[in-house]
């Protein structure tokens, strides 16, 4: 009788895991920008890596 070896340690395929992690990255995508924008010198909702400031926190506290 043919014996079938099954790898039970890996019940989710690597492709599904990769897709799941990509989905998780998409879910998390806005969060770093919230932090980045809180430290940005911009007054407008545009992406800029020029200059960081704590002025928004100073104004708040």
């Amino acid at each position, binding site marked *: 009788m043919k014996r079938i070896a099954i790898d039970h340690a*890996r019940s989710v395929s690597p492709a*599904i895991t990769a*897709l799941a992690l990509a*989905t998780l990255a998409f879910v*998390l995508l*806005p969060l770093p920008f*919230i932090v980045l924008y809180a430290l940005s010198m911009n007054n407008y*909702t*545009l*992406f800029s890596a020029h200059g960081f400031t704590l002025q928004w926190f100073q104004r708040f506290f």
Partner: protein
Amino acid sequence: MRRATFLLALPALLVLALFVVVLASFASVSLMVVDPGSAVFHGPPTLVNYGKLLVSEGAWRAVLTTLRLSSEITVLTVLFGYPLARVLARSHSRTLRRVILFCLVATFLSGGVTRAYAWLIILGNQGLINQGLRAVGLPRAALINNEFAVVVSVLNFVLPFFVLTLFSALRTIPETLEHAARNLGASRWRSFVTVTLPLSLPGLAAATSLCFALSLGAFLFPQMLGGGRVQVLATAIYDHIQASYDVPSAAALAVLFFLLVLLMLAVVGGIRRLVAVRFAGEAA
């Protein structure tokens, strides 16, 4: 015994009554008429607002746009959310499960408005993607003030709800059933299609219904990322109140919206029963 049952059900009935009273009071406004040139509305009860809605091209367009976008978002949520829920439920790495769970819960703490602003920074005309395109010499892409931006942002919002709802259902399915299928020669895909998927259908239906209802009622993301060009039912109701001061028409639209949600949930429930009968038939 009957008295004890009533007393136990009383808190739930009170909460339910609160919802019904609020909805009924707003629905009653839909039977009034507004004075021309003012925001004052009065009786006697009439169906004139419903008559206006039935012949309003804008209202039907909003209904169709809402249904189309909600369907697209729900399909995408199932396609991308199911693998994540499965990894969360089945991965043997405790660290990975904890990281995923933490990340999903963390998104709830960020709030909708802040996430909408974050999407403005990512998708905006001067946003991350467009600056990247410009840096490599490509033309600017229209990623905002359109349906694409609404679908992406609402999808991002509803995915954690879907994944966490489906995850709790997948956790109740014994992993040994999949192992038995694999030991009997089924491939990973076949064991998923014939064992896991049918058993997860009730949870999948619940998660799908939740996401569809959330997508139908989405207001913030269509308002902020649609730029006034994507008119869904929630934004149409808002415009009726804020732009026209026509609260009775907005109430009529809200009643239509409520009936639509009930109808769609009934359709989803019907599909769920049909699929369950099909899989039960195959199993027999």
